[in-house]
Structure formats: structure tokens, C-alpha cells
């Protein structure tokens, strides 16, 4: 029960986090009318995942292990691309927020219909297939016991609950801090997603170095425990991280964070850069 609950929580957090920050942003910047697009993307991803998962579990065809990892890994990396685009879109919008250029920003946002739908879809979809496969497997086991399925659902519900808490929390922050914090959070989350995607591709044998670990703290932070689950769910932190994962994470997070902060504090003041770089 606990084990399945933690799986649900982790997969849920991985999917929910980006969506929550996105939704908070749209709420905060007064573009609530764009929310349905996010929901549309999410619904689409959930339905496709569940359908695909059911097909793979009960249908005549299954996916090879390599294909599953390749799809999971590629979706993660595509999702990172989308989120990065989102981060900078938000940063540029933030700069003009409140000024008389708001209408122009809205026009840009309105023209990005597909972009918002895709961000929602990929944020959820990259974890969707894996989660759906687990859920169907648990559903298949319900003849013996319904606990796995209930555990997983409770985990996902907890993730959504934590997501709404986060949403409210960041909404309370003052406007200028809000953009800095959500954006910076997204950069770190996206870095984790990227490293995770790289790990999937390493497992599929598409990228090398699966056994060259930068560090392994799995004896301190158990991957199946609550701490491991939260760290994995939020930052995609793996207690046993390969060198390639670590390098990719640093190579993404440092420059993107730098560029993002520079854009947010568009003043070229050296103090700001030193403070955050």
C-alpha cells in the first residue's frame, strides 16, 4: 500500500509540478482565459496515455523495452525544450507586465495556443505512459486485491493536492518575486527532467555511461522511501546519478538560470548578476 502510494505520489508530482507553475503564472498575469488550453493539453495527454497503456497491456502488441525507454526519454527531452521556451516567454512577458504593452503580450500569448496545449500535454504525457502502464497492471491485479490501485490513486491525489498548495503559495508571493521564483523553480525542474531523460536513453543503450556514477547516496536516501520519492518527484533527483546525467544537469541549469535571471532583472546591474550567477 505504502509502496504503491509513493509511486503514485512521485509520478504525480513529476507530472503536476510544471503544470502548477504554469497555471500559477497564467492566474497571476491575469490570463485565466488561457487556462482551458492547458487543461485541454493535459486531458489529451491523460487520455492518450491511458488508451495507449491499455492497448499495450491488453492489446495484441506490446512495446519493446528499448522503445519504451526511447519514448520516455525523448518525451522528457522534448518537454524540457517546451518548458525552456515557456520560461523565456514568461520572462519576457513579465518584463512588460503592468505596462501599457499588456495587450500586445496577450496577443502573443493568444497566438501561442498550440504552444500552451503542448506544454500541458508533454508535461503530463512524459510520465503518462509509464504511470498508465502501472495503473493498468494494478487494475489487472484487482482480482486479488484492490490495494495497489487505491494506493496509486491516493498518491496521485496527494500530488495534485500538494500542487494546489504550491499554486496558492506562489500566488501569495509579491509579483516581482513571483516571476523570479517560479521561473527559477522551473529551470531546476526542467534540468531534472532533462537528466532523467538522459538516464532513460542510457538505459536503452542509446547513450553510453550507464554505470559511471558521479555519486551514489542510495544508502542514505532510499529511492523507495518518502524522501527519495519527494526529491525524485520534484527535482527528478536520483540517489545514484551517472556522470552524464550530472554533466547534462549542470550544463543546462547554469547557463539557462543565468540567461533567465538576466532577462528578469533586465537591468545590466553587475550586482544582480553577481548575486545570482
Amino acid at each position, binding site marked *: 500500500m505504502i509502496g504503491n502510494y509513493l509511486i503514485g505520489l512521485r509520478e504525480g508530482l513529476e507530472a503536476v509540478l510544471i503544470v502548477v507553475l504554469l497555471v500559477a503564472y497564467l492566474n497571476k498575469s491575469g490570463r485565466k482565459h488561457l487556462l482551458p488550453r492547458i487543461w485541454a493539453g493535459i486531458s489529451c495527454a491523460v487520455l492518450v496515455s491511458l488508451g495507449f497503456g491499455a492497448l499495450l497491456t491488453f492489446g495484441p502488441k506490446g512495446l519493446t523495452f528499448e522503445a519504451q525507454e526511447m519514448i520516455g526519454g525523448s518525451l522528457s527531452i522534448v518537454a524540457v525544450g517546451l518548458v525552456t521556451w515557456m520560461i523565456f516567454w514568461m520572462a519576457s512577458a513579465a518584463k512588460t507586465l503592468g505596462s501599457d504593452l499588456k495587450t500586445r503580450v496577450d496577443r502573443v500569448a493568444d497566438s501561442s495556443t498550440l504552444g500552451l496545449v503542448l506544454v500541458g500535454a508533454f508535461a503530463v504525457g512524459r510520465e503518462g505512459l*509509464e504511470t498508465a502502464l*502501472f495503473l493498468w*497492471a494494478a487494475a489487472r491485479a484487482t482480482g486479488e486485491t484492490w490495494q495497489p490501485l487505491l494506493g496509486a490513486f491516493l498518491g496521485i491525489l496527494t500530488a495534485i493536492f500538494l500542487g494546489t498548495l504550491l499554486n496558492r503559495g506562489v500566488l501569495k508571493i509579491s509579483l516581482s518575486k513571483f516571476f523570479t521564483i517560479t521561473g527559477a523553480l522551473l529551470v531546476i525542474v526542467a534540468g531534472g527532467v532533462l537528466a532523467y531523460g538522459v538516464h532513460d536513453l542510457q538505459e536503452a543503450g542509446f547513450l553510453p555511461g550507464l554505470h559511471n556514477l558521479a555519486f551514489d547516496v542510495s544508502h542514505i536516501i532510499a529511492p523507495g522511501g518518502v524522501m527519495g520519492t519527494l526529491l525524485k518527484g520534484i527535482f527528478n533527483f536520483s540517489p545514484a546519478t551517472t556522470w552524464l546525467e550530472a554533466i547534462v544537469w549542470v550544463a543546462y541549469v547554469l547557463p539557462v538560470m543565468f540567461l533567465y535571471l538576466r532577462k528578469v532583472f533586465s537591468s545590466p546591474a553587475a550586482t544582480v548578476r553577481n548575486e545570482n550567477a
Partner: protein
Amino acid sequence: MNKTSTAVAVLVVGTLALAGCTDNTTEASTDGAISVVSTNDTCNVSTDTTAGGTIKFDVKNEGSAVTEFYLLAEDGLRIVGEVENIGPGVTRDLVVMAPQGKYFTACKPGMVGDGIRAAFTVSESADGQEVSADRAALQKNATDQYAAYVKDQTEQLVRGTEKFAEAFASGDEELAKSLYAPTRMHWERIEPVAESFGDLDPILDAREADLEAGDSFTGWHRAEKDLWAPEGYTKMSQGDREEIATKMVEDTKELYTRTQSLEFTPDQLANGAKELLDEVATGKVTGEEETFSHTDLWDFQANLEGAKIAYEDLQPLLAGTDDALDEELKTNFAALQKQLDAYREGDGFKYYQDLSDSQIKELASGVDALSEPLSKLTAVVVK
């Protein structure tokens, strides 16, 4: 986000999904799938060997921690397939494409460490399934399998010879006679290998007719003559019998020791198969081998089995390279076996002397029919 990149993303994922599709083999979930039960400290895999191609594992977590299941390559590092996040009480499937070779299975309760590992072997593929291992690996596999077969046969030969020798030495003729032909089959199955030891073969298997002046008559056929004594033959004394019996066991054990470290090449297997058929043609189908016991058809059967094993070990090298030859050999092996089966009686066969001339001629032509394609085998397998 422009439409081009959207299209590209959809295309990439779609292609991957299609390219990665594989048969779910839903029927197999009842009979073909390998069941794995993972608990907190055990990893129970229902079998440690299966046929190459698409392999499906049903992994059930009966422990309390979340577990993972891996199929690892021979080096224990490369992941051939894995399924993660198997919650307690949940069964998840792993479908992999695996060519023949050696692997490890591993359950990882709590998702920590190297997991609970066990060796796993994938044998040659079932019909019609593609095996992507390269030829060198296939050749190695064939010769490894044959080496294992030789070891197994000599081991059984030692045990059989010990029993036979004891019965023979103690004068229990009934028992010795009943053990004679079945025990010799282990020798006859691997005759080309046994004959390759020039010092052991004559003392264990020489026929009286083939002896040259000065050679002493020992081994199996010496015992045969004493058990099925021809007219005018004076039986051995108890002491002579004991001497022959002890020597047989001793030499067979020596044969066993020497075969343990033998390594083979694909052409040795193919030529050996042909030699076995030649043995049938020159010795068994003529009734010369077992002059006194007339159990030639036992030897015939054993030679045929030995040749068939060599062919079957080599078969993955034929598939896709010379399917016509493969088909011809398969058909002719079956046909000759069917011919021979007609002479089965109980656990054994008819005695050679009870066969009619036309029956012998028929068997001889069956041997020729198999011998001819078998002579082409070597050229194909060494490619």
C-alpha cells in the same frame, strides 16, 4: 512554438512507437510467458532457459517494497530489458527481443543495489523468429552446446560402464547382456570424439576382425564375445573377466577426463556428423559391428542421434544461409529415424540377424539419402 517543430516532435514519437512495436503474444501469457516472483529478499524465475526471439516476463511483486526487474547481458552491465516501479501486489510485463546467449535476471527490491541475480540462458530461437546475434556468436554457441553434450554422454558412459563391468566380472550374464547395448549407445553417440583418442579407441572398441597380429583383444567386443559365446569358444575365467572389466572402467574414466576440457569448431561438428553416418554405412548396416550380440541397430540409433545433435546445434548457422539444405537435412533425419523406428521392440530393437536382405537394403539407401546432404554441411557452417 511553431508548427514545424510540433510536427517533428509528433513524428519522432510516432515513429519510435511504431518501430518499437512487438507482438504482445497474449496467448503466451498463459503458457509462454516466464513468471517471475519478486519478494523483499528472493527473486524466483520460473525457468532459467528459454528460446531466443521475443521473450515475455510476467513479474509479480509479492514483497512490501517497490521492486524492479532486469534482464542483463552476459557482462552483467548492459540492460537488455527492465521494468521499473512494480508496486507491491502488482504484476507487470517485460517484453524483450533477445538473441541466444547468456544473460542474468535480477530483481531489485527497494530499487537499491545490484539486485538478486541469477544466470539465464537463451537458446536457439523457435522457428520463424529472427535472431540478430552475429555468426561468430552462433558458431560459439553451437560448439559450446556440443561440448556440453559430449561431456554429458561420457559421464553417462562412465556410470553405465561401471554397472556393466560389475555385472560382467561377477558373472551375472543376464544383467550384463541387458546392459551391453544401451550402455554402448553413449559411446556410439559421440564416436568421432571417442575415436579421436588413438590410444583409447582400440583398447575399448576394437573388433576382433580388425585386430592385427600381436594386438590383444580387450574392451567392449571382448566382453561381447564372452557373453554371446559362439560355438567352440571357451569362456574366460573369472580372473580374466575381472581384468577386462577393470581395464574398461579405467580407460572409460580416462576418456571422461580428457573430454571435459575439449573444445570444438563448427567444422568438427559437421564432419563428425558425417563420420557418424559413415559409421552406420560401413559397420552397422552391414552387421559387422556387433558380430556376436547382433545389437547393431542400437548402435545405428545412437550414431544417428549423435549426428542429429551436431546438426541441431549447427542449425542456427544454416537458417537464413542455406534454408534448402536445412530443410533437406531436417526431412531426411526424420525419414531415416522413421525407417529405424519400424524395427523397435520394447526398449530396444530387432537383432540384426532377424532383418531380411531387402530391409537391410532399404535402411542402407536411407543412410545414403541422409549422408549426401550431410556432406555439404561443413561448407555452410564455416562461412
